[in-house]
């Protein structure tokens, strides 16, 4: 759909999309579905004991992007879940205590289960509301944008640099910079180009440069778009039901 919009724009709109429009279209292609389900096997570098398999469920409910993450493996984490109702409201369900606990917003930058992902990565999906984009470079295959926080917004990183694949309108590389301009992390996303314009992501990697190039890999074992997930799944009550 977004590629069609892009074509219409190129034919009748008088040229390239603006950087902000590219970012918005990318958000829409990545997160514009009614709902999303994926099962992902995560491998945390450095020989982590955890290496979980998780389910990710995502849907816009009441105008808010909701994301539910459930742990399927390993057994001692099985049943654990995290519900992100946007960036500021997150809950974790701890099956050992059978208790849902609020995660403070201060924990957003903390590592999620020792991986290179943070709680903020769980809560943040779309980028355009938090960042203003400017075009860095463009080729026939991709755009490179710099993203800086919009006034009044407080995203976790002072700058992002995103590489967007034109034919899929999806991010293939995302670099995170802190306020001092130091590159903190790099995320790479391998996608299935043969099904363009829709290109499902098959593999994600995240490298934290400030943790000695510590790496987390994620293989998407299964995914489904617009599967009809119920709104009721994205509630604290549903979180407490566990797997």
């Amino acid at each position, binding site marked *: 759909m977004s590629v069609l919009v892009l074509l219409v724009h190129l034919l009748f709109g008088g040229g390239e999309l603006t950087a902000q429009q590219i970012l918005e279209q990318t958000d829409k292609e990545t997160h514009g579905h009614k709902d999303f389900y994926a099962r992902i096997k995560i491998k945390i570098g450095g020989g982590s004991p955890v290496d979980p398999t998780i389910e990710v469920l995502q849907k816009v409910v009441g105008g808010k992007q909701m994301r539910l993450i459930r742990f399927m493996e*390993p057994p001692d984490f099985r049943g654990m879940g995290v519900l992100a109702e946007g960036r500021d409201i997150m809950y974790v369900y701890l099956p050992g205590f*059978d208790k849902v606990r609020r995660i403070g*917003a*201060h924990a957003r930058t*903390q590592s999620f289960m020792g991986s290179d992902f943070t709680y903020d990565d769980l809560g943040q999906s779309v980028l355009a509301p938090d960042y203003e984009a400017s075009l860095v470079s463009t080729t026939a295959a991709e755009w490179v944008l710099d993203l800086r926080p919009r006034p009044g917004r407080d995203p976790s990183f002072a700058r992002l640099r995103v590489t967007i694949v034109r034919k899929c309108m999806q991010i293939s590389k995302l670099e995170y910079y802190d306020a001092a301009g130091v590159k903190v992390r790099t995320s790479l996303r391998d996608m299935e180009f043969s099904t363009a314009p829709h290109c499902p992501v098959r593999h994600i990697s995240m490298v934290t440069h400030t943790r*000695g190039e510590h790496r987390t890999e994620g293989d998407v074992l299964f995914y489904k778009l617009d599967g009809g997930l119920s709104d009721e799944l994205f509630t604290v009550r549903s979180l407490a*039901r566990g797997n």
Partner: protein
Amino acid sequence: MAIRSVALALVLQAARVAAAQEAPAPAIDLKLSGSLYNDVRYVVAEKNLDGGALAVPTGFDRNDTRLRWKAVARAGEHAKGVADVELVWTGFSRVPYVGQLPPRPDATLDDLSNRLVIDPLYVNAYAAYVDLYKVAPGLDLRLGRQVTTWGTADKFNPTNNLNPLDFEDPLRFGEGISNDMVRADWNPRGDFIVTMVWVPLFRPARLPRTAPLGLESLARLPFQDDDFRHLVSSLVPPGILVRAHPLLPPTDLQDSQVAVKVAGRIGTYDLSLSYYNGRHDLPTPVHALASIEAGQLVADVTLGYPRMQVIGFDSAGSLPWLYDLGYWIEGAVVFPQEIRLGVDVAIPGQPSRLLDASGQNPLTVASTPYLKATVGADYTVGPHSYVNAQYVHGFIDEFGGGRTIWRASFDPGREVTAPREGDYAVAGTDLKLLRDRLLLRLFVVYDLNDGSAVVFPQSILTGSGATELTVGAFLFVGSPVTKFGDPAAGGSQVFARAKISW
């Protein structure tokens, strides 16, 4: 009574729904997990009663091997069963050891061939329940043995009264003991949830193994009336033998426990209101009979579990105007049953009953409502460290308004009094090192009234294959007539634990 009737109706509804769901039977999705856990502890410092007698000797205190199995069986989208049990080998024989305190009964030669005496074990049932989802629109039921934990505070939850607490292991800081109950959660929309719980039978708290030491010392007398207490102090010699006789509440419907909670969110702040009608899970003396047996003065003390009603409130969230600091506030107003301790005397030449100046049994717990509260905050400092601080008014074992009265048994005229609901500062920090494989954790509980404290440092090393090695210490600081220095609270110990999960 109305709430109890509703609870019964819910059980019947659950049975109806379960019957309706019998055909066709959905496939069972069974998931098993477990862990093996060794826990060795050593008491590093003797603890004496205030009179100087040895109460807690040094030596190995615990030598547990724990094998835990959990099974979760899901039958379709509407039913789930959970069984979570643990076999615990205590690692100590029941045959008495030289110098063991408190002394154990003599063993026989037959005991030495009895495996359960030589190598005792027991079973912990953490959970054994059935969940039925959506038995009516938005309504879930949970039936069976379970732990229902309420409250937003960290560990010190004044609104959490449904399950008795396990004080037997101080390192678990009063974890809930599972109990048979019926729980209904009604979630009509969003995160607005109404929870009702019915607990048919009362279950008492599990006391520390050092609890009988409380009978060895007459440091604490519960009488609130000063004159009456001083009279009893003058009559009771240090050598009195005190025998405790706990008595559980009746098993009728009127003595079951009920609770209701309404929870939701306003803006970004989580809020809940709750009500509990039941009993305090720690025993309190309700009657004493003084007599003389073979020349020995004996007090037979009956212990009961007083009724209480609790109206609770809690809130949690983040403060965006204060660096996103996480906060929680949890408070409960407790309406206790008045307790007057009947003191009968079966000693020739003495009055048959001791009464206070008003001619009644002496007051030990007034019916005056009192407050328990916890206010806390936490913060993540960078990606590897976390700090948490709480102010606690009313510790988890404290009940009733009025005063706790201590007197030194070596000097009965000297008394120390403090409000029954003490004030405590609790602080902790986590520091993750070695790419999060090593967790250094320190927690401290400090009694703001008497200066005693608990210091709990530990280091947890996580290895590959879901293994975990922990070494640490649990240290009590304070004199014998303080909250944490009391020998009945237990001895200071170091520990090492190894765990593997699958």
